[in-house]
């Protein structure tokens, strides 16, 4: 499903990550500065690594050796950023439909389904500035889904949310996983998010991959104390 191998030098980090995974929901787990977001940016096409190859569902998105680099706008990757990045001049409906207008051959979910799944109907005419943190993240998730993505990238989607909002967003993500089944890559440094959502976990530390485990092995490792947790 996802084949990834990238090498890149950032300001304060040498990134060298390679893994293959067939999981429907994969987590990238590691501390801040481990290079998790850079991996997501490379998959989304927002960062071009010095060397690398990224294949998603058999489609080559990047192959530096072969000179292939699919533009970010053509990759059909739904990216939910840590800070939401909702467009401040558009209302919730405008934000949700932004990607849907770009990709008309939608097959993941239609507008009404996403609105219902994420309970966004009451927010449709509001501007992002008037939303709570949890509401903003739900809109960001809905916006990414409506762009008919081949994969959904979630970059610490619950960071900065209070406990109740975190629980709420987690519930929504579990519902999405059950009902839509789109391939999801979750970046987190919270073990409970991995346990709640991921089928498989890739462990990152200072730009290097330090392990790849099933959820069961990850939870077992957590209980035995062999995996560093937040």
């Amino acid at each position: 499903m996802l084949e990834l191998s990238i090498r890149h030098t950032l300001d304060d980090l040498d990134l060298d990550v390679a893994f293959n995974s067939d999981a429907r929901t994969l987590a990238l787990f590691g501390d801040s500065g481990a290079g998790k977001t850079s991996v997501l940016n490379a998959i989304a096409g927002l960062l071009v690594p010095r060397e690398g190859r990224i294949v998603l569902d058999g489609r080559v998105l990047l192959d530096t050796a072969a000179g292939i680099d699919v533009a970010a706008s053509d990759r059909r990757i739904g990216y939910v950023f840590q800070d939401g990045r909702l467009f401040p001049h558009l209302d919730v409906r405008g934000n949700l439909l932004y990607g849907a207008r770009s990709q008309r051959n939608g097959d993941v979910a239609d507008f009404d389904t996403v609105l219902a799944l994420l309970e966004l109907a009451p927010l449709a005419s509001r501007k992002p500035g008037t939303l709570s943190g949890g509401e903003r993240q739900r809109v960001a998730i809905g916006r990414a889904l409506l762009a008919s993505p081949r994969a959904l990238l979630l970059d610490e989607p619950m960071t900065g949310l209070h406990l109740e909002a975190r629980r709420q967003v987690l519930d929504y993500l579990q519902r999405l996983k059950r009902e839509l089944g789109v391939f999801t890559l979750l970046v987190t440094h919270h073990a409970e998010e991995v346990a709640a959502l991921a089928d498989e976990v890739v462990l990152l530390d200072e730009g290097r991959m330090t392990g790849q485990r099933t959820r069961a092995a990850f939870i077992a490792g957590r209980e035995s104390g062999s995996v560093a947790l937040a």
Partner: protein
Amino acid sequence: MADWLSAQDWQALILSLRVAVLSVVFSLPIALALAWLLSRRRFPGSTLVEALLFLPLILPPVVTGYALLALLGRNAPLGHFLAEFGIVFAFRWTGAVIAAAVMGFPLLVLSIRVAFDSVDTRLEAAAETLGARAWRRFVTITLPLSLRGVAAGCVLAFARAFGEFGATISFVSNIPGETRTLPIAIYELLNVPGGMPGVHRLSLVALLVALAAAASATLIAGGSLWRRRRDA
């Protein structure tokens, strides 16, 4: 006011307004493109382009007007070439539009560039992941989020063009009904006996236009600020 202004006064006022508006209308697309390039792309010679952009602000306007005459005058190679197709700028009101556009262009580009710089490029990246290519990102994200700066640049360029004198008189001279703009008419009235009442009239008109431009700039800024506070 119709009786208060003479036919020549009206002629000068309408010509000045037409020249100023058209100079902004025609230079705006080029200014948007150049400002976007300077704000979003590093390219060879970008520093030189920025330096050249400042030239009309630094050079004496008369020199800019002379440069236009040397480039677009009937005896200049480019002017001669264009004249073959019936396109003549020297000593025509269209030349006044060119002179005003050149003089206002740096203010327009700089204002728009600052506005583009202030737009969070991470929002453009988010739009890109949602399938928006460069043109759509520009039209739906960059431009709406920098409208206040673009509008302010337009008002500044309009004001600069409306008050343009040196480059205009050098390039297109002072031809009543064709190139005699409001500032040139005031200058001429200052040099003729008994011209002072006319100077006062036209100066008052210039003041009213300047006040209207300043008020519209304030309204534009006010509207955007209100939206920004509400969305914060």
